[in-house]
């Protein structure tokens, strides 16, 4: 899945988050989006998900401008190819982790017979195999983050959008998560777009970086 930001400007009232932001993410890329708090990292994720609209410019996914999608279900189809790890988890609180994952699999029309094996596979992958029957409020922050990752991975997405996925993890678990994302990127060729303000990860890994500033941006 190719993602292009073409001269995107996003204003929240009088506050301008970005101005004429342009970049291109190729299929299979691993991209870090960095910047201080309030620089628009989460806004960028929301723009890709078409959760919010840009003030000007176009976000193009596989050549389609999200602003000008003709059919109503086109954005649903795009979202079904994206696994998201939300900063605030966005888990349904009265469904267990397993049910949350099953719901996502149902949304993407995952073959019914493969749902349970897939859930077992991903919870094992994120080391939550003994906690997946619990409700989100019964998990710690780190476990919740991993549950989110399991849900995102389950649908075998073309792109994983990870919004500060290491924010609630201790350093060891944070590095484990980064390694896991790297493996997924290398083995499955899944595009990874990860926002972070932890420069250790960015500096340790030789990956594409989009730096956002308070009122300016630069691509590298």
């Amino acid at each position, binding site marked *: 899945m190719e993602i292009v930001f073409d001269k995107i400007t996003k204003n929240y009232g009088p506050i301008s988050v970005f101005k004429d932001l342009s970049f291109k993410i190729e299929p299979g890329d691993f991209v870090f989006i960095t910047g201080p708090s309030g620089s628009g990292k989460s806004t960028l994720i929301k723009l890709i998900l078409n959760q919010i609209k840009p003030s000007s410019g176009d976000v193009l996914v596989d050549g389609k401008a999200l602003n000008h999608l003709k059919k109503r279900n086109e954005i649903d189809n795009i979202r079904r*190819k994206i696994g*998201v790890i939300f900063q605030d988890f966005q888990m349904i609180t009265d469904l267990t982790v397993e049910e949350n994952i099953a*719901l996502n699999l149902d*949304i993407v029309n995952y073959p019914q017979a493969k749902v349970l094996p897939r859930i077992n596979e991903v919870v094992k992958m994120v080391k939550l195999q003994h906690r997946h029957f619990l409700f989100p409020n019964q998990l710690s922050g780190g476990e919740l983050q991993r549950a989110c990752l399991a849900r995102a991975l389950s649908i075998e997405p073309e792109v994983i959008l990870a919004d500060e996925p290491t924010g609630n993890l201790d350093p060891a678990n944070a590095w484990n998560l980064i390694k896991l994302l790297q493996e997924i990127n290398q083995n499955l060729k899944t595009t990874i777009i990860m926002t972070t303000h932890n420069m250790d990860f960015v500096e340790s890994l030789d990956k594409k970086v989009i730096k956002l500033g308070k009122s300016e941006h630069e691509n590298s």
Partner: protein
Amino acid sequence: MKILKLTLHHIRRSPFQSLIAFFTVACSFFILNSFIFTNRGLSTVLQYFETKPEITIFLKDGLDQDTVQSVQKELSAYPGIKEIRFISKEKALELYKEMNKDNPLLTEMVTAAILPASFEVSTFNPKILEVIAQNYSGKTQIVDEIVYQKDIIKSLLDWTQIVRRAGISLIIVSSLVAFTMIFALIGMKITNRKEEIKISRLLGASKFYVKKPFILEGVIYGFLGSLIGFLLSFLIIYNLRQSINSFFQPIVFVQNLSLYELFLLLIEISTGVLIGFSASWLGAKRYIKW
């Protein structure tokens, strides 16, 4: 996660709200079904009187035997006469006592002298009754009063109409209450589950996908409510069947079981499902905007 599983999960998460919706629908269908059975019984009563053409001519007191016999002769001369029965004052008293045997107060003071003698005339053709009624209504020196089935039928028809109108109004009101209740409840549930809907939409669920569990929930209330409402009223009516029928004797007010009841059940369930579907569909359309 299957849609039905998610719907049942929604119902379980707010059991009291769900119970209220279910109870309202069940009440509506209880009223509807009870009305249908009453209406059917009333139609049988009407039919009974309509197919039993009869006129009663009450005679004035003090008529001699010859006059009474000449009236009987005159009546026999009409075409299509089925039966003419003379009820003397003594026979009238006998009948009166039989009718009120359980209430001695009503029989104590009554004697044969105060009851009128009468002729009960039944015909094969109801039109003849009209001719007899017209001819004898003018003979005031020998006829005290004419009670004609037409009057009874008219009065019954008037009552049936009133019952039907009241029943239909009650059904409309209770159906509207059930509809509004499901609509409001689905709206409340959608508001309560706003976050879940938003998350599902971000994960790629279509608008229809997120609406489905709520629509199915309304359908379940409609289905179960109509089924339970029907069964409740059906069981009550058929348990009281003997008492009701003995009260209306010789008319069979509550009919024997037949395919009609099954047909009625299917129609009522379909109506319940339709009410549940339309109310929840409208609720989902109104409240799921994002």
